[in-house]
């Protein structure tokens, strides 16, 4: 099945636009693509007429150009015929927004769609979904542009069984400065499932990290998915919902009561190097750091900070995550101290965590960072930055990023996410270094790198 027209359409037909209701999902999709994206968009409604001065075609076959992608937003009982019309007219793929299928007990309607699509080898996403968002290319999400916060173009593909979770994550990614390659809500996943998208994104040159929100797989599909995941060289991150045990289990077997659905799910992912995350915040952290750095680490972490408390919390978090915080020997400690400004030399502690104290200035952080990179002791540097320390300027983050880039050591920063500190955050993020809004989050990012496939 060729998914290229789904993700790379030059022309889109929106079937089911309303001539009287501008807030109809199909109208929202038509309008945002027409105004904001570099694709040709055509509106279709049996009644014909005009929408915003554009022709409304009464049949898909009347559209005067080849259509790569049709967005179907018609009543459930009409989707089958509409899809058959699309196939006949040479449309190459579809997104079915409409609900009212297996999620409403109408598995028969869904089976009909599957039969039509399979016979014609016709790829479609859905039904009962939001569809696809590709930054700067096109967007089938029926959410008005003015209500959305869109992430920038980047290298994370996110596939979600829930449209709501997908949109939430897009907003979160935007806030954290994480770029996306594609975002897909797969709804009832009647034909195109996680496995198909895993295979597509494994080969997609714009995608570096493949993330999934999954509620459950169909029979034996979990096995197929993890078996394919092992062959994929890109990191695969998964957030699973529905972890609590489903009702009372038969007591006839100990194993049956110990190996619940989620126990098996979690174990199968771990066995096949799929990175399961605990919650949505962790999903964003993993995506951010894994798209920033390509190589796994063993997890020998240097912690550079201006506060002893921050260092101590980070050490605890590293230890809880199985990361090491190796101590520097006397010689290397003296080397760092010698490079610090005189007022800091007497009070800084340089064993690791490296606490430069609240008297530190930019040059002290830069010196510590440079010597930590050169020491050969560490394979990851955490910088816990306190923007309110008087000696720090907004130049510091860019200077630290430059060193990390030169020395090819992953740098992860903690900076409180406040408007006031935006330039410090940008200094890291825009130079390719992830920033977490919490100390634990920054440690979690280091953990993500250590879990990356070798």
């Amino acid at each position, binding site marked *: 099945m060729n998914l290229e027209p789904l993700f790379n359409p030059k022309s889109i037909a929106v079937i089911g636009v309303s001539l009287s209701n501008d807030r109809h999902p199909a109208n929202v999709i038509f309008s945002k693509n027409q105004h904001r994206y570099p694709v040709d968009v055509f509106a279709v409604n049996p009644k014909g007429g005009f929408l915003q001065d554009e022709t409304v075609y009464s049949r898909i076959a009347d559209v005067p150009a080849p259509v790569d992608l049709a967005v179907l937003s018609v009543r459930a009982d009409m989707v089958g015929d509409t899809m058959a019309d699309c196939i006949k007219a040479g449309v190459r793929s579809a997104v079915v927004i409409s609900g009212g299928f297996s999620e409403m007990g109408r598995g028969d309607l869904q089976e009909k769609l599957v039969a039509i699509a399979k016979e014609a080898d016709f790829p479609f996403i859905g039904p009962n979904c939001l569809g696809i968002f590709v930054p700067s290319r096109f967007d089938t999400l029926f959410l008005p542009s003015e209500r959305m916060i869109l992430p920038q173009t980047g290298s994370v593909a996110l596939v979600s069984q829930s449209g709501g979770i997908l949109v939430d994550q897009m907003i979160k990614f935007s806030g954290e400065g994480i770029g996306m390659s594609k975002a897909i809500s797969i709804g009832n996943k009647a034909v195109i499932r996680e496995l198909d998208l895993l295979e597509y994104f494994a080969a997609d040159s714009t995608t570096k990290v493949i993330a999934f929100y999954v509620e459950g*797989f169909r029979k034996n599909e979990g096995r197929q998915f993890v078996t394919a995941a092992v062959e994929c060289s890109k990191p695969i991150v998964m957030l699973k919902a529905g972890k609590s045990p489903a009702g009372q289990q038969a007591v006839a077997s100990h*194993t049956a009561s*110990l*190996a619940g659905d989620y126990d*098996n799910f979690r*174990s199968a992912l771990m066995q096949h190097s799929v990175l399961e995350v605990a919650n949505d915040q962790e999903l964003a952290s993993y995506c951010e750091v894994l798209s920033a750095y390509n190589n796994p680490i063993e997890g020998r972490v240097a912690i550079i900070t201006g506060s002893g408390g921050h260092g101590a919390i980070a050490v605890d978090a590293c230890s809880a995550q199985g990361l090491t915080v190796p101590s520097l020997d006397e010689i290397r400690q003296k080397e760092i101290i010698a490079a610090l400004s005189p007022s800091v030399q007497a009070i800084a502690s340089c064993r690791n965590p490296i606490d430069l104290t609240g008297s530190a200035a930019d040059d002290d952080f830069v010196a510590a960072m440079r010597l930590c990179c050169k020491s050969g002791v560490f394979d990851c540097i955490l910088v816990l930055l306190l923007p309110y320390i008087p000696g720090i300027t907004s130049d510091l983050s860019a200077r630290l990023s430059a060193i990390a880039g030169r020395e090819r050591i992953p740098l992860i920063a903690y900076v409180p996410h406040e408007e006031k500190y935006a330039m410090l955050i940008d200094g890291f993020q825009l130079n390719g270094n992830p920033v977490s809004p919490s100390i634990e989050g920054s440690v979690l990012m280091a953990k993500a790198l250590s879990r990356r496939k070798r």
Partner: protein
Amino acid sequence: MMTQEMMELIEAAGRRGWMMEPAAKRLLELAGCPVPRYAVARSREEAGKAAREIGYPVIAKVVSPTIVHKSDVHGVELGIAGDDELLTAFDRLFALPDCQEVLIEESLRGTELIIGAVMDDQFGPMVMLGIGGTAVEVYHDVALRMAPLKEGDVQAMATSLKARKLIEGFRGQAPIDMEALAACLLRFSLLVMDLEPYIASADLNPVFCSSKGCTIADARFIMKN
């Protein structure tokens, strides 16, 4: 690979819903998994003969189509040292509900592990390793993997247990023979792949492991409906 005899054992168990212990032992034996020396006895004479051939001390267990959990009905006698004890045990067990025969086995020692299998709807056959005994469901300290297992999986499973020290050696006790444990689990995981159409779950509990090897002391297969 399933042999004719294995298929017959499975068909007989299918009619009942679960496989009784002598059949389960035989199935495991045919699959190359380590089971103790055992024999079934339908009379006092047969029991005595079996025990002397196996060699005291032995254990005796009830075999009944209506008793799934033997320990719930005191259906197991451990550490039987001689003929007199054996006959007393045989008489008591043979009087339990629907008892058809009594299983006589060699006495085993070692750390008690549990090995199990379930057929997961999404992921297919899964195998489990944990610290065994009746409290296994209390501690929930188990490792699961998709079958079939590969070299190295068993070591990783053992290492992931909270009670890993019981396997690696603890308070002067020698570590468990990991090679034997790995061989047992690998063979079992292959059997489980073959059994996918027939069984819902399996418990090998306990499996006695020591520095000298591993032996499956009790086994139960729950068949699919």
